[in-house]
């Protein structure tokens, strides 16, 4: 009976938390700041969330592209189809790995930092002091970070895919000797802008929004102690990763499923 009660409590807590995060999101999206105030704040966050994440995105994209080139060549050469390695790398990156891995890396690098930063601002009463100065922290602190994540992830995913394709080319063409014309030609012929590239962009937009929402909400809602910040940061990475992987399946089924 106690276990049942505990399960019920957990369910209620989850529903309450979802409700709070929904109200929080409505509060963030509902408030509109003057462009002259909001734009500099957004640019600052784009730099710290987006530009400073470039290094990890570029390095990861390069290695993942190289691995895809190597694996693709090994598998495809068994069937004499190594010329298709370019299209395999491009489709894999544009449709799946670009948006998904970028979102996972974003959650680990920028999402956790966002949560910790906002959580620390809450713990040190900076958010409260802002409120008491007549400044809404949802507009001043949260909204620029949410929008910056929303904008940065699709751009980072595009960078990831481009660098990954280049890494695959390095291995496939420069190292393993696949004919360069086949590599690029097959890729161009098989990758569709609407069904592949655009769907990949839609995925990364959704992932960017969800990861940023989770990160800022966890920071804002955390228990204002060092333990609370630590727990919120962990939750950001775990929830974001699970949300990205779960949503990826749903979106893939909707976009590419042939039911």
């Amino acid at each position: 009976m106690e276990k049942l009660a505990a399960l019920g409590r957990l369910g209620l807590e989850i529903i309450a938390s979802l409700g709070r995060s929904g109200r929080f999101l409505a509060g963030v999206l509902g408030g509109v700041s003057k462009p002259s105030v909001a734009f500099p704040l957004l640019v600052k966050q784009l730099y710290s969330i987006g530009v400073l994440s470039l290094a990890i995105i570029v390095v990861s994209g390069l290695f993942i592209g190289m691995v895809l080139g190597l694996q693709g060549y090994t598998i495809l050469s068994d069937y004499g189809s190594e010329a298709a390695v370019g299209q395999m790398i491009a489709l894999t990156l544009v449709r799946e790995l670009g948006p998904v891995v970028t979102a996972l890396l974003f959650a680990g690098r920028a999402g956790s930092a966002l949560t910790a930063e906002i959580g620390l601002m809450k713990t040190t009463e900076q958010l409260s002091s802002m409120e008491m100065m007549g400044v809404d922290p949802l507009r001043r602190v949260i909204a620029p970070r949410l929008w910056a994540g929303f904008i940065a992830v699709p751009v980072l995913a595009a960078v990831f895919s481009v660098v990954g394709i280049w890494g695959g080319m390095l291995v496939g063409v420069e190292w393993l000797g696949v004919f360069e014309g086949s590599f690029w030609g097959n890729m161009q012929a098989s990758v569709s802008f609407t069904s592949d590239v655009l769907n990949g962009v839609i995925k990364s937009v959704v992932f960017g929004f969800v990861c940023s929402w989770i990160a800022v909400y966890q920071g804002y809602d955390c228990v204002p102690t060092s333990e609370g910040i630590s727990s919120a940061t962990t939750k950001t990475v775990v929830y974001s990763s699970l949300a990205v992987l779960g949503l990826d399946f749903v979106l893939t089924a909707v976009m590419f499923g042939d039911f």
Partner: protein
Amino acid sequence: MYAHIEGCSRPPEAGPVIPGRLLETGMDTSPYIELEDVVFTRSGRRIFDGVSLRIPRGKITAIMGPSGTGKTTLLRLIGGQLRPDSGTITVAGENVPRLKRKALYRLREKMGMLFQSGALFTDLSVFENVAFPLRVHTALPEDMIRDIVLMKLEAVGLRGARELMPAELSGGMTRRVALARSIALDPELIMYDEPFTGQDPIAMGVLIKLIRDLNSSMGLTSVMVSHDVQESLSICHYACIVADGQVIGDGTPEELRAHPSERVQQFLHGHPDGPVPFHYPAAEAGQDWGITGSSR
């Protein structure tokens, strides 16, 4: 319980405010803040159970009480950061819990609050911290903002520290910068949350002087939450003691010192045992040590 304000026209001897000055100069002496039968519950615990309080305009009011009795919560209720379960909280004639978001934020522009931790923005310099409310709420030109910020920093004795970052400040300096920031917009009300906690004697003396001088020079209504009895009573015009969700005593410092309540006297003199017991409620001692017949 209803705290009266009429009896609080006499300031402490050390204070710079001349007794009855506000009345004599014809200034408005109506309460700036009124709490009427406020009930507030958090996490199933009743923090305030019908608290009524009037805080006079232009004077220093100290709200004292043991740790954990909800003194800071009271400030947050006044500032509209928390909403009471029932009762009214009126600040400058406006019922705070009923205000819409926009009106509440407009009202807060008339308030300044000094947080216990200072709550400075860690990514901004001292200068930028003080300039922050001016930049957000006014359209003043940069040279005027600079002049105002330097004047506020001069008032707290930290004009020379304008380029420092919050991490480079001592605890006392942090609170002084926070104080300069909270008066940047020349508020009508300033709330101090435990201003003396963790301060060395010199920093404490500086803060006492600043609170007193700001009150007298700017005519601010000051509300100070503290459990530092002597320091608070030395500068306030009026004080009340909160415990167990109620106001257990109130009046001028002299009235409080002569208060008949044992609980008030225990708090003011710091007696370890009394109506607030030394021992946390526990089972009979004999049970824990396995001795029959022994009890506490």
